[in-house]
């Protein structure tokens, strides 16, 4: 992501390019503009941290990219290009070929994600057969292989385990394995490690990062935890009420956060400093009307109203 502004010319094809994305929810009580013109760019081999608080629109952005926004929500405008191909223009049948194979999403709450009636080996093999068109036996071998890749101890035996027999950390690693088995070029991780213990979280993130480097794939890391962003991401984008307020490379962001909201978010993690609850100006709901300016190479900030 050289910058989040769309007019920057792309030298290489971006892994993910989101342009002017608008997703609205048409509820009985009125239209809720969950995403209000979000643009961002992520290059292959990079990890972008998308931060924001509950209700900022982080998950809606992930859903919009994958085109799985639940009704009454709908993408009303904008492009989400995966290696140059706009997913918003694809037919449902084409999309099924893309999801899981080219782009995969890792969600929190792994137990809800796994089928309780199938062993994890069977579930992984099913994905391998669907996406890699492997024979039954080869798919099974691939499943065991990917389990060892995500550092599940004794993968051959564990492949026969049912989800309820796994600890939370192991179940989360199985969900990651499931996302990885189709060898996607892009993964979206939606707060996927927040429920894990710190030691397991560190292991899972290390794993995600090494897979990214191995395969040159890209990753959108949705999180509320700036510690994850600082330690694992290359770039960061701050989302607030459906609008990007700041986008920068990680070093520049942590060294010199520009938007008052970003400063406030950072201070929430740094107990040495006062929490500055009083200094944050009210950010208007229509922040998208304010200009997003580039203040340094690769560092854009929205004006304060």
């Amino acid at each position, binding site marked *: 992501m050289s910058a989040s502004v769309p007019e920057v010319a792309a030298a290489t094809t971006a892994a993910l390019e989101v342009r002017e994305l608008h997703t609205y929810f048409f509820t009985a009580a009125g239209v809720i503009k969950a995403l209000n013109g979000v643009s961002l760019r992520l290059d292959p081999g990079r990890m972008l941290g998308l931060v924001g*608080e*509950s209700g900022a629109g982080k998950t809606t952005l992930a859903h919009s990219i994958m085109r799985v926004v639940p009704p009454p929500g709908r993408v009303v405008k904008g492009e989400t290009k995966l290696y140059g191909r706009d997913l918003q223009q694809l037919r449902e049948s084409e999309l099924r070929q893309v999801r899981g194979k080219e782009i995969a999403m890792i969600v929190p709450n792994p137990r809800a994600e796994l089928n309780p009636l199938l062993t994890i080996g069977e579930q992984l093999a099913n994905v391998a057969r669907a996406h890699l068109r492997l024979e039954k036996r080869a798919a099974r071998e691939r499943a065991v292989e990917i389990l060892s890749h995500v550092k599940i*101890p004794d993968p051959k035996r564990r492949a026969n385990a049912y989800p309820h027999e796994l*600890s*939370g*950390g*192991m179940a989360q690693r199985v969900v990651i394995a499931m996302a990885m088995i189709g060898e996607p070029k892009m993964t979206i991780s939606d707060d996927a490690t927040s429920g894990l*213990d*710190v*030691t*397991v*979280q*560190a*292991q899972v993130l290390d794993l995600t990062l090494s897979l990214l480097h191995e395969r040159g794939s890209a990753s959108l890391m949705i999180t*509320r*935890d*700036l*510690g*994850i*962003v*600082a*330690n694992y991401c290359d770039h960061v984008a701050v989302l607030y009420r459906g609008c990007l307020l700041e986008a920068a490379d*990680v*070093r520049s962001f*942590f060294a010199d956060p520009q938007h008052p909201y970003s400063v*406030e*978010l*950072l*201070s*929430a*993690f*740094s*107990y*040495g400093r006062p*929490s500055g*609850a009083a200094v944050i100006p009210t950010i208007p709901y229509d922040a998208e009307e304010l200009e997003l300016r580039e203040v340094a190479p690769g560092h854009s900030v929205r004006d304060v109203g």
Partner: protein
Amino acid sequence: MSADPSGASAPVIRVEGLVKHFPIAHSRAFVAAVNGVSFEIARGETLGLVGESGSGKTTVARCIMNLESSTAGKIVFEGREISGVPAKEARLLRRQVQLVFQEPFDSLNPRMPVRSIVAEPLQVRKVEKQERRRRVGELLDLVHLPASVLDLYPHEISGGLQQRVGIARAIATNPSLLVLDEPTSALDPRARRQIIDLLVELQAELGMSYLFITHDLNTLRHISHRIAVMYLGLIVEEGPTAAIFEEQRHPYTRALLSSVLYPNPETRRARFELRGEIPSPIDLPLGCYLASRCPLVMDECRAAIPPLVTVGDGRTSACIRHELVPTAAEAGTASV
């Protein structure tokens, strides 16, 4: 282990050799959730109880709250033993010990407005209506909630405000001990920070003691005076917060702290990793529970559970090789 037992500065609570085993149906086996935990909390002090899932920290809290009966051990609150007292007496004691929950929304009655939620403990104590009204106003001030929320229902306010209501309710009866079980884990970072600041302020104002249970070390660092680290139902290391952050004397504590992600890209962590998975609490090993995962393990570790020994000023560790635990000064953490 800091307060002196003579009585001059008697601890608010003293837990001695607490054991809690849960029987497993149709089997002689049991889940060994807590395996002999001892600690004290002085007046106005915060003890941070940290550990990962399955470490037994919440079970300790539930035993203190009398929500579980302990299998063995003593819980002495304000000089009186409260483990195994009759239900009626236990209820009286409970006014003095209050609990704040992890999920603020789930812990508030969705069909009551804030006013009634905060007033409920007072009503149970048969406080008069006039006095109740006055006290509710006072409590709202203490937790910095505007009077405008009084007639709102829990779903109408944010998670941070909900947790303020939960705290107001908990302190309504002037407890001397608050048990806080992951009170900020469900909150957004800014709300979390504000709740922590509020708790620090309330402690200074009201002199309450806190038992703060969490797996979030970054938060614990700010709020607790002392930290006790739990692993598989045992305290493996205890000491003053700053000392523990500075230097760990148990491999498990070292592993925990080396996994903390500081919001600073210039920090390079010296990782200290444990192998494999946590053993099952149904089938605990003979010696040190960490032996199967510990990089410092030697034969003696598997012989018997190592006792907590004093390893420094107000510090204890349950590792026979505590002197070998590496201390990697975490570069950049000073500024965090």
